């Protein structure tokens, strides 16, 4: 990593686009948005300014006190993290809380961050630990999982927008049933297999990344994933 680039005041991309972090912060980041701007409205400049940098380099900017660099990471990973947490935590509202908690922990740990590990490995390790602990803590209080595409979520008041308008009500019902079955079967996997499947299938992470997050060897991760998918194949064959 070229430390000279990181020591500069501006987070200029390697391709030479002159849109720095300082400018982005003035244009609006999370802090600026919190002062009255529409949520997320002012985050794009920060994103544009950080193009061409690795996440680890951006995180080093966060470490040096650059708020816009943190905004960039939030905007880049909020969606993947919410979806990861949603599948891990089984609850949309809890998923958002947990994803926010991940970002808060990243922010709190910024001073101790070392770029030796890949940023996503670090991020997903935090996320996995949080999600697994949450799942363990709430195991007893969790009701039977059901998904309703019609009724709004009790906690958020939002309705899942996954219905296909081109389908009939009956087709949607069948689809809903299939989704619930998929969800139940994935959730019923042993903890490590479930985490590996969610990372592989839904986060598109490769074997090496999953192995690093789960602290396993690559071959053990391949074996773990094969067993998990084999189990899912067997249990979901009635829907295939």
């Amino acid at each position: 990593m070229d430390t000279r680039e990181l020591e500069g005041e501006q987070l200029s991309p390697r391709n030479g686009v002159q849109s720095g972090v300082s400018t982005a912060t003035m244009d609006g980041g999370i802090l600026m948005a919190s002062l009255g701007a529409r949520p997320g409205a002012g985050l794009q400049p920060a994103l544009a300014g950080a193009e061409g940098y690795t996440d680890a380099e951006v995180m080093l900017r966060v470490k040096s006190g650059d708020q816009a660099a943190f905004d960039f990471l939030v905007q880049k990973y909020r969606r993947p993290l919410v979806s990861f947490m949603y599948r891990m935590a089984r609850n949309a509202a809890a998923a958002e809380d947990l994803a926010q908690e991940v970002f808060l922990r990243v922010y709190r740990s910024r001073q101790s961050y070392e770029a030796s590990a890949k940023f996503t490995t670090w991020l997903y390790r935090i996320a996995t630990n949080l999600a697994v602990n949450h799942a363990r803590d709430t195991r007893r209080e969790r009701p039977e999982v059901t998904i309703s595409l019609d009724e709004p979520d009790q906690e958020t008041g939002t309705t899942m927008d996954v219905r296909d308008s081109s389908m009939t009500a009956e087709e949607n019902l069948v689809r809903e049933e299939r989704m619930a079955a998929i969800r139940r079967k994935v959730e019923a996997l042993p903890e490590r297999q479930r985490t590996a499947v969610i990372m592989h299938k839904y986060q598109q992470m490769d074997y090496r990344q999953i192995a690093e997050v789960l602290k396993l060897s690559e071959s053990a991760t391949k074996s773990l994933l094969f067993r998990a998918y084999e189990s899912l194949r067997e249990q979901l064959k009635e829907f295939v």
Partner: protein
Amino acid sequence: MKCEEIRAVMPDLASGLGEVTPAISGHLAGCAACAGKLEEFRKTMALLDEWQAPEPSPYFDVRLQARLREEMAKPQSAWMAWLRRPVLAAALSVLMAIGVGLFVREGGGGYQPANNMIANNDAIVQAEPGTAVGDLSALEKNNDLYSDFELLDDLQVQHDVGANP
């Protein structure tokens, strides 16, 4: 290429993440078991695609901003900041270890009666029955029992009085 090697990469092949090399194609062409398994894995993967996750809610950023503001407003605890320094934290650990060591060495802090109390207890234990000291301590220790005997004696007398001669 062996079946085990194909199986190791099958999740990637089935989800379209892995490249189908000529060696893999060659194996699949000649191994019906692996080809069949891969096909089933592909169908399972397609089914798993149906489990969709919702988008972050419009409140996500607002809530995160509020939590970040709280985080920033929180005064950095001097004590915690002190602990975060590895050298100082290590020094604290060493001091604690020494403290625990001294504590254990001094007897673990358990209750230890004074020496004179131990001597007195020994004297009581060693009192011979039949001697004055032994009898007195036996009387004192068994006072309740002897009281009951007296009560029983009284009952016996009453019983005798009521008896038919």
